[in-house]
């Protein structure tokens, strides 16, 4: 799988993402400057975490309107894979590639801590190496991760099986306590209808090396790079 990582001004987890992809694939991903418009040859486009444009106005708002987004939209329409993590997820919703929006955390504070994500389905290219309904550990680091969509949109997501992950306890219980940022229905990640675009708030890419005490994020990248 040929992967590229989009670099928007202010993005800051593009290096983490590159390390994670390289750890799984052995190949350095292509770094895509936000003004580039040719993504041909890429199977996977990653929108990494960080603070594109300082998170000013709304997180992801300005990045979602940058030149590269046209090509990303076309890539999505071609059925290409897209992974948006944290700010990348916010950019995907701002660009309308995924439904809903990410609001300020309910606590109004930045949340930096580990969380457990319950895998809602394991038959996608992203989650093939996880087990359905089991959890894995990921790093939360965001101020605006509170997923919002109106009831109809939420019902549709659920009905079509497009919820990727929910915030849960280690054993998989989804409760208000595990839903630290206040997301609607504890949603931590969602898919596009063709299951090829995934947006998620927590960072699997920061836990891919056992030296960090946990490599729970690695199966996601292993599955992805093995898929195509």
């Amino acid at each position, binding site marked *: 799988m040929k992967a590229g990582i989009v670099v928007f001004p202010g993005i800051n987890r593009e290096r983490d993402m590159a390390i994670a992809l390289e750890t799984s694939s052995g190949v350095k991903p292509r770094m895509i400057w936000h003004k580039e418009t040719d993504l041909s040859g890429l199977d996977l486009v990653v929108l990494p975490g960080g603070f594109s444009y300082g998170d000013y*106005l*709304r997180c992801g*708002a*300005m990045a979602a*309107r940058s030149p590269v987004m046209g090509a990303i939209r076309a890539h999505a329409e071609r059925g290409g894979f897209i992974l948006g993590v944290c700010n990348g997820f916010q950019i995907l*919703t*701002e660009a309308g590639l995924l*439904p*809903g*929006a990410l*609001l*300020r*955390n*309910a*606590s*109004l504070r930045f949340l930096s801590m580990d969380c457990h994500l319950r895998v809602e389905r394991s038959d996608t290219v992203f989650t093939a190496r996880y087990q359905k309904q089991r959890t894995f550990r990921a790093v939360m680091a965001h101020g605006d991760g*509170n997923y*919002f*969509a*109106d009831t109809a949109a939420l019902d549709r997501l659920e009905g079509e099986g497009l919820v990727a992950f929910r915030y849960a306890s280690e054993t998989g219980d989804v409760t208000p306590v595990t839903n630290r940022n*206040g997301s609607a229905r504890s949603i931590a990640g969602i898919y596009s209808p063709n299951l090829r675009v995934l947006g998620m708030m927590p960072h699997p890419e920061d836990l891919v090396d056992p030296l960090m005490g946990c490599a729970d994020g690695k199966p996601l990248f292993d599955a992805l790079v093995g898929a195509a």
Partner: protein
Amino acid sequence: MKAIVTVMLKNGVLDPQGKAIGHALGTLGFTGVGMVRAGKIIELELAQTDPVKAKAEAEDMARKLLANTVIESFQVSIDG
């Protein structure tokens, strides 16, 4: 010509910031405070000198960037 764009969360979208402000006002001893909503205001200096056109321009900016209409509504006013 100055355009003022006011962006508020739509009704039905949770506004934790408004809620927190309401709570904090209560803690400070202010009584009789009902619902509190927090929003954004963006002041733009425009070269455009025709107020009608300036308003249309600012509305376009709001639609394209300044507001996310999934969650927010906006209002534009023109000030001299």
